[in-house]
């Protein structure tokens, strides 16, 4: 029995695994802090979610702001002007891209420098690139992401935790000089990304349509082999990261980035958003229906209710007697129908039918390496749309529809954060928040077991993972971090009480 506190997951996530004959046979995911955000929103002003919910997570604050604003737009039945739609999208996309780069190179790749791998031929090179604080790539990522974030700062006045999206649009239109700066920052980042991360222009990367194409691309030239993607793929394969971390093979996206009517950006046929909503179960695609979302608490430290509850009827009542056998987690267990579902860039890539990831999923299934690859190359799809929207942003056009007040009622805002599906469900009564429930991407991925005892996605993905050195179980880190958990982002994250350590859930020794 290993009990592993994992750092570098932005907040504390503790994973317990049972190891038999050198590999994981069971796993429990436990986050460790409960801050009570949903309940403290109740009774506050109808617009207060715009200020308070971004502060749920310092990494996903633009995403929370977007979800909060979209819910209020829906409540007021407000049509947001094209300028504001594009502005909101641009801020969210910039947040995604910097998050993907920081997560990959500061957090995920740091594990590749572990002394466990010191005998591997590529280890010294991994240390040179990714050693915390000192690696060459670490230094570049800090510099380049800081510059890219100026786009979000230009809209929000700060990052994280801006409140510049309001029902009806944005609080200001960027000026010509703002837009000029945004274009420069994006161009600079894209040039760095092509040079350092891909080792080729994005068009060359987009020509990769299958696993075989990926191999051919790797062999094509030195720049591609040596770029960060090429290096991660090569070292990752050497370490077997393409063979661990499969999980349930259920994927979920809430969809994001609405495309304004007259934009030159075109979403896939039949979809109104650049990132489509949808569900994949194994290889079957299902249409996404919001009513199918629910949260279970059978294994979570909340007052029990049977089965799952839709978040519009959900409740967050902490139940901390400290003597639960079944409960091991402050996180609820979100389910789609009865399915646990993985969410994030790999889910988006599969649901967007990107040929490379459809092929990898179909022929090899999900893995740590595929999941991480989907994250770091997500920017490839976002750059061109951002460039077009920067051209279409009009400094003289309206950015906010006049709104008298938000009416009473109930609504939801569903979007994709950097880490995947994010939803806010809100009820307003007499101008005050009466009900607020949030389901974060990390709640989906780091979910505990549900009422039927089915493991959450990370728990399931850990099964079968080899653990070579129990004092540095770096393999577990690879699996968990490939989901990019941001546990403080889980509003009702869990703790592992001392009693749970004595009496672990599920009859673990």
């Amino acid at each position, binding site marked *: 029995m290993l009990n*592993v*506190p994992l750092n*570098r997951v*932005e*907040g*504390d996530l*503790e994973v317990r695994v049972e190891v038999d004959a050198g590999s994981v046979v069971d796993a429990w995911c436990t986050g*460790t*802090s409960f*801050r*009570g*955000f949903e*309940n*403290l929103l109740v009774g*506050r*002003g109808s617009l207060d979610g715009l*200020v*308070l919910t971004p*502060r749920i997570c*310092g*990494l996903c*604050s633009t995403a929370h702001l977007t979800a909060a604003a979209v819910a209020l737009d829906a409540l007021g039945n407000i049509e947001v002007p094209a300028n504001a739609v594009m502005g909101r999208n641009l801020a969210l996309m910039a947040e995604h891209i910097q998050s993907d780069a920081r997560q990959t190179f500061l*957090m995920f790749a*740091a594990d590749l*420098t*572990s002394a466990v791998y010191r005998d591997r031929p590529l280890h010294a090179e991994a240390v040179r690139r990714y050693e*915390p*604080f*000192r690696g060459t790539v*670490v230094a570049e990522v*800090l510099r380049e*992401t*800081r510059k890219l974030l*100026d786009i979000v*700062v*230009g809209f*929000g*006045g*700060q*990052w*994280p*935790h*801006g*409140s*510049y999206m*309001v029902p*009806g649009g*944005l*609080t200001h*239109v960027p000026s010509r000089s703002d837009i000029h700066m945004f274009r420069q920052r994006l161009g600079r980042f894209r040039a760095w990304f092509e040079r350092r991360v891909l080792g080729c222009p994005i068009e060359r990367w987009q020509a990769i349509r299958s696993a075989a194409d990926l191999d051919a691309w790797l062999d094509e030239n030195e720049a591609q082999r040596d770029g960060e993607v090429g290096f991660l793929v090569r070292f990752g394969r050497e370490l077997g990261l393409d063979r661990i971390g499969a999980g349930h093979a259920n994927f979920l996206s809430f969809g994001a980035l609405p495309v304004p009517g007259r934009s030159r950006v075109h979403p896939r046929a039949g979809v109104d958003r650049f990132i489509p909503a949808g569900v994949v179960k194994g290889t079957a695609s299902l249409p996404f229906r919001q009513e199918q979302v629910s949260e279970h608490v059978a294994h979570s430290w909340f007052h029990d209710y049977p089965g799952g509850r839709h978040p519009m009827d959900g409740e967050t009542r902490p139940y*901390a007697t400290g003597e639960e056998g079944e409960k091991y987690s402050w996180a609820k267990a979100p389910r789609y129908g009865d399915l646990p579902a993985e969410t994030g860039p790999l889910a988006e890539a599969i649901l967007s039918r990107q040929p490379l990831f459809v092929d990898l999923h179909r022929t090899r299934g999900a893995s740590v390496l595929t999941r991480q690859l989907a994250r770091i190359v997500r920017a490839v799809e976002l750059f061109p749309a951002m460039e077009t929207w920067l051209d279409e942003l009009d400094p003289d056009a*309206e950015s*906010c529809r*006049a*709104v008298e007040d938000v009416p009473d009622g109930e609504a939801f805002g569903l979007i994709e954060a950097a880490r995947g599906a994010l939803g806010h469900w809100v009820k307003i009564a007499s101008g*005050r928040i009466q009900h607020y429930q949030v389901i974060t991407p990390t709640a989906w991925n780091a979910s505990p077991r549900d009422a039927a005892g089915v493991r959450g996605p990370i728990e399931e993905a850990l099964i079968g993972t080899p653990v070579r050195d129990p004092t540095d179980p770096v393999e577990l880190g690879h699996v968990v971090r490939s989901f990019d958990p941001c546990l*403080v982002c889980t509003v009702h994250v869990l*703790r592992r*009480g*001392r009693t749970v350590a004595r009496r672990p859930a599920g009859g673990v020794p």
Partner: protein
Amino acid sequence: MATGRIQNPSTAEDRAPNLFWLQCGACSGDSMSLLGVDDPDLGELVRDVGLEILWHPSVSRTTPGAFQEMVDLLVSGRKPLDVLIIEGAIIRGPGGTGMFDTFAGSPKKDLAVALARKAQFVVAVGTCAGFGGIPASGETEATGLQFHGRTRGGVLGNKFTARSGLPVINLPGCPAGPEIVGGALAALLRGEALPLNEHQMPLEWYGVLVHQGCTRNEYHEFRVEDQRFGQPGCLFYHLGCQGPMTYGSCNKLLWSGRTSRTRVGVPCVGCKDPDFPKPHPFFRTRNIEGGPVDLPVGVDRAHFLAYKTMAEAVAPERLKERKHPV
């Protein structure tokens, strides 16, 4: 910065300074500010200044055993700790146990207190660590290190001082900006004095009101007030701007050297105030007898209202027509 050296009083050993960053009931927003620190940035601080980052939850890598060993050394005093930075509220619930926020099964609040007792400097980065912030308005019994809102005390108590003799240094803000985090670190590593206000916030960054430097000030001056978002006028009378009541250099030291919340049309929400978040709704000014309930720091109500009525009467058309963008 290259001169950053901390004298260890117990051994008189001259060595590179170290830093331990602890997240309690946090969102990582202030950690994102640390990653945004520029000139020198985080990597340069480590490589060029020789700052030893013992631990940061986002970017450090260590094994569980080595982490515990290091904490034991620091808490027992066998390894000196120079700078302890705490991010996030100190969670005391449920029922004072602290078990809403744990590390390896033990309350984080106990770890925070144990490390604070050994540190040369204790810095509360962000409003939550200093004063309790948003979590303190909820059910988790959250509080700040040495304050609970404006009330002295917190988890360390009013009398606490770090080994340097200084109380907790509060750097509120949600988040505290990168220039404040970087500037405070630089000052501490150089051994510079940081004069503090009554809430232990350095005057360097909290000596002026958010209102100072606001580009909407001409509108404010003539009481040209906006009632909806997206306009260039003043946000004080109707949209709940707390800039004239909140200490912070947001409009003096701009974010990324360029901008601030009020410059992008967002009324100040008072995130650097010890009482953030105030209990009444954001973005709505509470009014009484034709004037805001909360007035700029130190002004007299009757005279303020009289002055504002006169100012409105002489407001130029160019402002009333909102011809000047902000």
